[in-house]
């Protein structure tokens, strides 16, 4: 009887396969028709699981840059994208990286996005001399672990943390700061950097952590009871939005600030415009709202991705991809791209993409944003604001 069931299951599967073949026929990719050489740029990030949205933001940023380059058509090669999903987890990071390395057409890659997955993946990239440019892995130690081909277009937590702390202490004159992180690798890295700088600036710091949740009401009670001048949250926009909502709901009057993980218009939506008003955001990235280049990016992104809006780390991914394209030549190999990237100097939309010898960006500016009438407005760089 079981065998019959298996037979019917097989029949179902075969029928399904045939039917899908009927409708999927048109979607197979057509080869490069222009006769130019075709390179593949890899992308690795969390494309499924809880953090899929951040991965999709990055992936579409890469795709935008590739589509633009192909449309312009002035390059001696055409480009293709190959994505590899690591779910944002270290245990999938190495396999995801190996998948890109195995594909001999992949010349360089953007990612990995998360620091944990980066630590798991980089030995593989180093081994294959494949250039990897992360748009978002900010853990300070990553460039000191001996990875040969690792670069990142985003300043580390240490730099952002120092800038943010100085602004809180000297710009906003906060005497007591409540530093809260989301217990993730990103969050703890950033909160650690802020706290050490705040202490050198003579500010009293309370440290606390809460893993991502939706219910921040009890946490809000606790923060309000501590009566800090300022709260700094190290984590992502979805949770920061809920936290701000809970804080305002409980009547918190102090300064509220967060970092690049929250520097997204979706934060305002998540918190509600009224609650988000006056909130500070720090980011080691230039002003994406007023820069004409950024406006062009916004348009290109929406044109190439069915109207989707860019999100956190989309601009960085776009910059990383364009910087890679700027060093590509028709006869490039993985090793030659990795070597050429050392001296890359590309004007990106978030910063001038240029690296120190260990793979950190030279541009170390940290910018302060504030939500005013529901919009994020840049106030300036911390070096200008804190004098």
């Amino acid at each position, binding site marked *: 009887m*079981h*065998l*019959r*069931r298996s*037979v*019917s*299951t097989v*029949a*179902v599967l075969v*029928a*399904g*396969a045939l*039917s*899908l*073949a*009927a*409708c*999927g*026929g048109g*979607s*197979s990719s057509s080869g490069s028709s222009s006769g130019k050489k075709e390179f593949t740029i890899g992308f690795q990030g969390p*494309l*499924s*699981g809880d953090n*899929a949205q951040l991965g*999709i933001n990055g992936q579409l940023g890469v795709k935008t840059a590739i589509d633009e380059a192909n449309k312009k058509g002035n390059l001696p090669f055409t480009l293709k994208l190959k*994505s*590899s*999903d690591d779910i*944002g*987890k*270290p*245990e999938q*990071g*190495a*396999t995801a990286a*190996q*998948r890109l*390395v*195995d594909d001999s057409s992949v010349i360089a890659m953007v990612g990995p996005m998360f*620091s*944990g997955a980066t*630590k*798991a993946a980089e*030995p*593989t990239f180093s*081994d294959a001399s494949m250039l990897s440019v992360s748009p978002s892995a900010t*853990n300070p*130690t990553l460039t000191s*672990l001996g990875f040969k081909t690792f670069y990142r277009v985003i300043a580390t937590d240490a730099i952002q943390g120092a800038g943010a702390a100085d602004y809180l202490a000297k710009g906003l004159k906060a005497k007591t700061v409540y530093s809260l992180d989301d*217990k*993730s*690798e990103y*969050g*703890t*890295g950033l909160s650690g950097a802020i706290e050490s700088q705040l202490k050198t600036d003579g500010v009293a710091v309370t440290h606390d*952590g809460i*893993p991502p949740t939706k219910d921040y009401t009890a946490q809000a009670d606790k923060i309000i009871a501590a009566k800090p001048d300022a709260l700094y949250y190290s984590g992502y926009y979805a949770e920061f939005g809920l936290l701000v909502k809970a804080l305002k709901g409980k009547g918190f009057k102090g300064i509220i600030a967060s970092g690049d993980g929250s520097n997204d218009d979706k934060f305002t939506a998540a918190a509600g415009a009224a609650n988000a008003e006056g909130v500070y955001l720090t980011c080691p990235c230039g002003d994406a709202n007023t820069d004409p280049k950024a406006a062009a990016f916004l348009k290109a992104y929406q044109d190439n991705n069915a109207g*989707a809006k860019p999100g956190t780390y989309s601009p960085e991914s776009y910059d990383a991809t364009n910087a890679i394209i700027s060093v590509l030549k028709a006869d490039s190999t993985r090793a030659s791209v990795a070597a050429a990237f050392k001296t890359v100097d590309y004007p990106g939309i978030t910063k001038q993409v240029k690296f120190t010898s260990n793979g950190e960006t030279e541009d170390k500016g940290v910018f302060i944003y504030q939500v005013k009438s529901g919009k994020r407005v840049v106030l300036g760089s911390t070096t200008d604001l804190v004098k």
Partner: protein
Amino acid sequence: MRLSVLETKRLAACLGLGLLLAVITGPSGSQDHPSSGIRGSLLDVRVVDFLLFGLVVWALAFGLRRARQTEAVSGPTAQLRQTVRTALDRRGARPTSYLAMLLVAILVPLALAPAAQLSLFLDIGIYALLALGLNVVVGYAGLLDLGYIAFYAIGAYVTAYFTSASALPIHAPFLLNPFFVFPVAVAVAALAGIILGGPTLRLRGDYLAIVTLGFGEIVQILARNSDGVTNGSRGAFGVPGLSMHLGPLEYVFPRTKALPYYYLLLTILVLVMIAFSQLERSRVGRALAAIREDEVAAEASGVPTLRYKLVAFAIGASTSGFAGVLFATKQFFNPETFSLQASILVLTIVIFGGMGSLFGVVLGAVVLQGLAYVLRDPIPFIGFQVADADRFIYFGAVIIIMMVFRPQGLVPSRRRSREIKLSEQGLGHADAITGASEVKP
């Protein structure tokens, strides 16, 4: 031809499934246009294909049912099945088939791409080992453990503690070669199993499940919060790879190559399977079976149930700890690796493969984890590429379909298939795990 009410219902169900398939494979929606995905999937010509597909499925199933009615016991498929069974039951056939499978496990990886080899070690091999351990707890003893991955975490962190001076903020006063950590980690994990099991194994059924779930969560949270011990969410980077120094014989396992690790793991898997099959037939195994079937009766006939349950728990925990060592020497990890979802995945593999059957649980790991890997590439012959973000829709669907059509798992143990067959005939329950409600005060 007039259809009966039942057949009409079945036809409707098949068409409904066709529409569902259309939605799953169709375009995605967004939060601003939550119905756009569904509209794009259903108000499109493609929906005809899927309705046709539903119709074909129904027609095939209908035809099969018809054939089955006339075929009775002597039909061709029944004969075929009988032939296969006699062939398998012949003396010597089983060892031969096992050898053939082992040969496949040895040779096939050589033909795979490095990424697939890596996945074979990390996703399939390690999870097969974990599943074998959990199988002792769930399959043999009938205890539902939802925090099993905690012991895996313990194994991994013990490895980091004893082998590396830099991976964790603290390290052992003397560093060991990873091979010597195996017994240490196994002992620590078994001890943790006994400490957890001692007070909680008196609880039955689902109460035990929630307590073990809590234990798993606590271990993960402690790993995340104890920055000074576990390095918190930054994880343990720099655990050395395996290496052997036996006099003149020296071999260092290269961390970026998967095959040496894979063959080591394969050897371990074979040894563990042999050991567990002996265990099942031993006094302990029979005692566990008695506990699983009817704990009260077992206790009444003089089986010290608590002690045997602890033994099962410790064996499962130590297997998990062992796997943790192997994992840590190959791969960077952080607390997110040891999530409740990972525990659930191991349990799913055990049940999917066939609870109680050693070969079944290994096959479960191969099929389920292999599926997760294969779905990353276009489906062969069809060319349809599953979007990464949608992968777990298909994964979930396969699990449901499997449980609907083969609730006993891919390769059920003989004892379990008999239990299920009896229950289908209405004689007794198919349960190895007694529910809390069956405990009468």
